[in-house]
């Protein structure tokens, strides 16, 4: 038996993920106001409460599982995917679905087939589309600013401060606007000249994407994740976008725009890399990541939703057992030509 162990634990891994998310959250607060902090806190409390409740119902020891941090990671990823000004019950409902149904009804930590945060997000997106598309405008574009307290009051009661209208603080997202304007016959070049757009992606949101990228590189350096999924996903997204962009630059936006907007970076480094719901073999991770990248592009460009990360991840989650089965690496001492399953 093995008497020694590396000083690593599930809790430490999840803690590193939360820390690496911190950078992007800071950028979020700077560019879109402090409302995100309210929904992050709300989702965290809801997740911990649900986790404790279900563990108790299942007759598990609660403390070591609560301390593993996995519920918090789910809560944060869900909150970061949602519009920060979404009403409190939406956040709670999404978190509860993620923890209770997507995680524990599948067997709890390590057993779930679908990424819980994305399952919760998609449930909300298809059930409450109007609430889920109310995104705040970046601070420099908004006509009014909400303080932390104002945001909390709005999230819990739905009341805005006197003189502030919803239109003054919300705005279409860069991806959404691009989609609708292209349908109206505008060219990419005309659309992206709007103040909503920055150098690469949306104003403000491109900085947040950069922060997710840095956080992801930290996770790579810390060996929390491997390079396979993020590189494959971003490369596939880039390649697909490049192909169409070269074909018709007026109708298909540049590949770097795709990397710098929406959930691409967050998805590549923090969501698609979820070990529980992803493949385990190196080759499988490459296939999984590339397929997600491709699906994201297809959904964004031809689908009914402005962004496609959540759907792409969930769809590919279903394929994981099959991917693992057919990508088993050659075991040392075995013939490379002969398949082990034959």
């Amino acid at each position, binding site marked *: *038996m*093995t008497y020694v162990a590396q000083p690593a634990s599930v809790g430490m891994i999840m803690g590193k993920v939360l820390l690496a998310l911190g950078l992007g959250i800071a950028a979020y607060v700077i560019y879109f106001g402090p409302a995100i902090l309210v929904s992050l806190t709300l989702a965290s409390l809801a997740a911990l409460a649900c986790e404790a409740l279900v563990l108790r119902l299942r007759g598990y020891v609660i403390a070591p599982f609560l301390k593993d941090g996995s519920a918090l990671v789910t809560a944060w990823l869900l909150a970061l995917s949602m519009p920060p000004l979404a009403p409190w019950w939406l956040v709670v409902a999404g978190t509860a679905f993620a923890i209770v149904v997507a995680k524990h009804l599948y067997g709890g930590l390590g057993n779930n087939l679908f990424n819980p945060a994305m399952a919760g997000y998609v449930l909300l997106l298809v059930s409450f589309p109007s609430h889920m598309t109310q995104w705040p405008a970046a601070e420099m574009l908004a006509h009014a600013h909400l303080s932390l307290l104002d945001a909390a009051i709005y999230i819990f009661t739905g009341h805005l401060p006197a003189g502030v209208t919803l239109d003054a603080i919300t705005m279409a997202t860069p991806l959404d606007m691009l989609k609708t304007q292209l349908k109206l016959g505008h060219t990419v070049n005309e659309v992206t000249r709007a103040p909503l757009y920055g150098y690469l992606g949306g104003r403000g949101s491109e900085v947040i994407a950069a922060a997710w990228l840095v956080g992801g590189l930290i996770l790579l350096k810390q060996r929390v994740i*491997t390079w396979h999924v993020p590189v494959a996903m971003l490369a596939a997204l880039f390649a697909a976008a490049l192909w169409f962009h070269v074909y018709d630059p007026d109708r298909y936006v540049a590949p770097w725009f795709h990397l710098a907007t929406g959930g691409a970076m967050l998805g590549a480094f923090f969501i698609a890399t979820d070990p529980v719901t992803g493949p385990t073999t190196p080759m499988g991770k490459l296939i999984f990541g590339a397929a997600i990248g491709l699906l994201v592009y297809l959904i964004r460009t031809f689908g009914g939703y402005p962004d496609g990360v959540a759907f792409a991840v969930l769809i590919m989650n279903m394929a994981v057992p099959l991917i693992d089965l057919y990508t088993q690496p050659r*075991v*040392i001492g075995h013939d490379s030509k002969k398949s082990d399953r034959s």
Partner: protein
Amino acid sequence: MRRLYGFPGGVHPPEHKTESSGRPIAPAPLPARLVVPLLQHIGNPAKPVVQPGQKVLKGELIGKADGYISVSVHAPTSGTVRAVEPHPVPHPSGLPALCVVIEADGEERWVEKTPIDYLHLDPSEVRNRLRDMGLAGLGGAVFPTYVKLNPIPERSVPTLVLNGCECEPWITCDDRLMQERAPSIVAGARIMRHLLDAREVIVAIEDNKAEAIAAMREACRDTDFEVVVVPTLYPSGSGKQLIQLLTGREVPSGGRSTDVGVQVFNVGTAHALDRAVNHGEPLISRIVTVTGNVRRPQNFEAPLGMPLAELVTLAGTPREDTTGYIMGGPMMGFDLNSDQVPVVKAMNCVIARSERLFPPLPLPLPCIRCTRCAQVCPVRLQPQDLYWFARAKNFGKAQEHNLFDCIECGCCAYVCPSHIPLVDYYRFAKSEIWAREREKKAADRARERHEFRLQRLEREKKERAEKLAQKAVASKDTAAMPNPDAQAKRAAIQAAIERARAKQAGIEPRNVSQLPPDKLKEIQEIEARRAKLREAMQKQPGDTP
């Protein structure tokens, strides 16, 4: 410079080598009583050849090799055999095994030492002598050395590797041996090379043993042996991994190192070979690292059979918070269930445990498929899948995913953030599969026996019927004629009976190979009485029909 190829995975746990590597090897004082197990190697236990009360000399044979995979066992000192009986031995099962208990007389009188003239003797004769001198691998697996020195004629072994890697934490017995007795190791390697007819000899040492590297380089100066420094990475000391590291060749699954033309021996084995061949000394002692929660960690040259309790006190009285002893290293070793077990050929290291040095691992959490285990697996298995199959008792699937390629190095368990004792699951699955295989074989045999019996009954019935028919015809044809055939037949029957009787007399009773000598003696006496009785019966021909 030799090009190194590397192997996948591997880990680098804290080394803990300096605790015991600084002090020279000390000879252990002779204990008053030695308990020498008859099974200290892989294979069949040796057959006891001594009886209680018998005097033995140092190096005298006390157990004879039994079968192809077996080696002999010798008295570690001169004295009197007190008993041949089961005793606790160092084994994970904790089951007692047959041992020869010797009371030392303190005189250390040797049997006559007869060195082996390996350059002039027939190689097979040399190998038989090595078997009779008790040589087994001292790296921990204790495989009979003479078997490994027997290359199959059609498969040559061009490369001989001396393994001085010692990659497990805490253990330093090979390190010290190389520092202090490098010339003897080289002398042993010469013998190995001669018997294997190897073209090249590589001494592989991990780069954390600078003094050992220097000493071995010095000892190899007048030879064409090559000392190769390999990076410190666990489990580079494992045979297959070392071969891959040095040659880039993979030992085929289920195959042996000779399949890729390499034979690997531990440096301690080479030293023991030198003592046996050039000095005529059978394997009766070994270097043991005593370390961990002891006051003066050190390596000792201990006689086989020395009680563990006496060995560990050589490193100072055990600290109060000692909770037990690990045999081997912390990656692959196991708990000794008693401090009364003896030193054996496989005991390279004893680590005193304490909660401070080896804190209990936290409660295992579920596997999150993080694949850290797969990243460090030197065989490139998918440990997280094997764990899943073993847990679900889906043994067929586990086998399909190459469970039996697992070398149980423990890298996966070492890095698991959920602290799952992965290797324990693989051992469980392997033993279950073995047990099922045995059951299946037994059932197959029983079925075959049953079918054979039915066939035999059928055949006998048919034969009887035929015979009856023939007899009926014969009696009709030759009613009153004297039959010369019948007489010949009768004589043949008589001869057959005689043959059967002679054969019976020659059959040895079974199930006696593992009995202590006093029992054997008793059986022999009974046999003698029986023989006498038989003789007496034959002297009275009138009684026999």
